[in-house]
């Protein structure tokens, strides 16, 4: 089995563009203010947490493939480039073969909604410019084009836990030698249809948008290493066996935790984590619900804390409003606890 190290992190969130903005807002532990989004046919608006404009217009927006792209693509590329850092040039030169796994639940929903509205009015005049952007893999395709990367590229569609499945896919590619490095991205964009739909299930939930990215390689970095130690099975959290049982099975596959470890959860208060001995953060409570992007922020927060030596290991638990319970564990390999060191 080959080892998998996190070599870069990226985040675009309602807190701003970049991992430092995410770190700062999570440290403050106060939910971000909510903005209003108009909903056609209603006097009232819907609550959202949107990504603020970047302080400086990103240069990637000048790329021909990105000018007309959806907001989700812009967020994904922003997070990806931050995670890749200086390796962007290695990839463009062909010296680094990069696999891309993009994860999303709603995809380019704003263009999908807009295109279908046009098609309902008159399908003969619906915009042919919009339709291609509605395809789930458009963001991953634009990113590959920007990086001039022709290697394997998957878009996984599913709930927040899909981001962790994406990490497992990437780990498999690295182990098989398909690619020398892999980028896993979770991205979502704002649209009133999503906020409207979320409200049907929980009126307290605030829809958010943005992206998060992890850059993975089999080789450790020269500085502080963050290693992907484990990803649990994905346990169905549907009617049978039920969410509580799925979460219990998921937790049973991970070490019990220690006081110097971090837990990144969707929401606090899940009984299965009630005995967690260390610090707990819940990015979704602060930033809002952004499905695959939320899961990516949880992972970014976990890895960032390890990298900055604020914890020796971190568990990420995804059990939110999704369809499955799944968890991941990241560690500083220099601080492996006895339990992990002796595990087979």
């Amino acid at each position, binding site marked *: *089995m080959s080892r998998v190290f996190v070599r870069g992190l990226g985040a675009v969130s309602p807190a701003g563009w970049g991992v430092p903005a995410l770190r700062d807002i999570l440290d403050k532990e106060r939910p971000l203010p909510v903005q209003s989004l108009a909903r*056609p046919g*209603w006097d009232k608006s819907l609550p959202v947490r949107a990504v603020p404009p970047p302080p400086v217009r990103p240069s990637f927006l000048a790329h021909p*493939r990105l000018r007309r792209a959806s907001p989700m693509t812009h967020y994904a590329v922003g997070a990806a480039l931050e995670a890749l850092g200086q390796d962007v040039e290695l990839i463009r030169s062909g010296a680094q073969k990069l696999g*891309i796994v993009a994860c999303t*639940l709603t*995809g380019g929903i704003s263009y*999908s*909604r807009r295109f*279908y*509205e046009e*098609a309902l009015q*008159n*399908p*003969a005049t*619906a*915009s042919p410019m919009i*339709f291609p*952007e509605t*395809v*789930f*893999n*458009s963001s*991953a*395709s*634009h990113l*590959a*084009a920007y990086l001039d*990367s*022709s*290697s*394997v*590229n*998957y*878009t*996984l*569609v*599913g*709930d927040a836990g*899909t981001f962790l499945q994406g*990490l*497992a*896919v990437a780990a*498999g590619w690295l182990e098989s030698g398909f690619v020398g490095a892999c980028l896993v991205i979770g991205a979502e964009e704002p649209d009133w*249809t999503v906020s*409207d*739909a979320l409200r*049907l*299930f929980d009126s307290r939930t605030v829809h958010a948008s943005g992206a998060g990215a992890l850059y993975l390689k089999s080789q450790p970095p020269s500085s502080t290493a963050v290693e*992907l130690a*484990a*990803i*649990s*099975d*994905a346990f*169905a959290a*549907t009617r*049978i066996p039920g969410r509580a049982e799925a979460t219990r099975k998921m937790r049973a596959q991970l070490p019990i935790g220690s006081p110097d470890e971090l837990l990144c959860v969707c929401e606090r208060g899940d009984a299965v984590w009630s005995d967690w001995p260390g610090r707990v953060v819940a990015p979704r409570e602060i930033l809002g619900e952004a499905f695959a992007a939320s899961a990516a922020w949880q992972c970014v927060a976990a890895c960032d804390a390890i990298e900055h030596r604020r914890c020796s290991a971190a568990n990420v638990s995804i059990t939110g409003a999704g*369809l499955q319970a*799944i968890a991941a564990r990241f560690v500083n390999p220099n601080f492996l606890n006895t339990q992990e060191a002796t595990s087979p």
Partner: protein
Amino acid sequence: MLFPAPRFSNVAKSHRVVVTGAGIITAFGAGWKVNAAGFRSGRTAFRPVTLFDVSRQRCKIAAEVDLPDNLPPNRLSCGDLRRLQRAARLLLWAGHEAWSQCGWTGEDPVPLVLGTTSGEMCHGQDYLRQALRTPRCFKHQASRVTHYLVQQQGINLANALGLHGEVVNISNACASGANAIGHAWEMVRAGRSERVLTGGYDALCHLTFAGFDTLQVLAATPCRPFDAGRNGLTLGEGAAVLALEDSVSAQKRGAEILGEIIGYGATTDTHHLTQPQPEGIAALAAMRAACASAGVVPEQIDYVNAHGTATPQNDASETAAIQSWAGARAATLPVSSTKAGVGHLLGAAGAVEAVASLMALRGQWLPPETSLESPDPLCRFQIVRQPVDAKLNTALSNSFGFGGANASLIFRRWP
């Protein structure tokens, strides 16, 4: 654990991956037999669209499936069954056939790896229509949201068959089905799973139909891949599901083996979001990668099931790729596109064409394009035009999609 993945055996070398079950539903009908007969004879299954209003569209035909009134035996509740729309029903038909054939039980976890472009878009369309037209009416909206989600169709199939295990949904446009099978193949080959249920599905829906129509890539008449006068693709719908299994496991339990998957290649064409690079460079790379993983050379490939959408650009690009890849072998290489019979099934295309390739290998015949009128003079390979028996040992199937998603799979006849 998904990572580090436990190994089902201690064998260090790659595992051979065989197909022990295959289910299929297309406009030819439901099941292996009727589809094999359709592909073998070169039947076409296009007709005027009845599922939604196309009166204001340029194109008015597609390959619609006559969905049987009843569903195959399953474990879903009455409530779940009521909410199943077209895509989920197509998937269930194909999944049930594959599951029944392979003879697996649901005791051990069986991962489900599926490809689709739009999942249950009918629910999404209904949701938006109601939200726009009667914004204060929420009846059925929560259920539509739940069943619109792409993951839900896989969960429905798992629940219907009594499966438990990871559900992965790959949405790589028209290569989704092939990518799903390729990913599942890699899971078994690498020893991460002993068995995987995999495939693709997509149902015709208004949004997608209107989308392709606005791009002016739909033909007004049935599609004719690789024809000099081709003028666009024709959409279809359906599903195909394959039961992939480690060969040792399959032989140990005496399972009937339908064929073997020996190679997979996946690349990304960065040329344009919807148009392939004219020389087919990324497509060529996918075919070469598939051959490399299979340990075969083009001279060992007996048939190519082409992506062959019948758009001028796609077929020209694929023609260039096949000819570069095959070299001198191109002159005698049989090639056809089964889209000439059942249309372009988008996320299901790669899976349906995988099953068509297995049928050809198993039956020792070549699927013809009987609607071909005048072969494109640029094609130096042999386009199969009439039903013919042939000695086939290996077949390669191409799937190329929007976003430059390219995938090639190689199948081998099981002795």
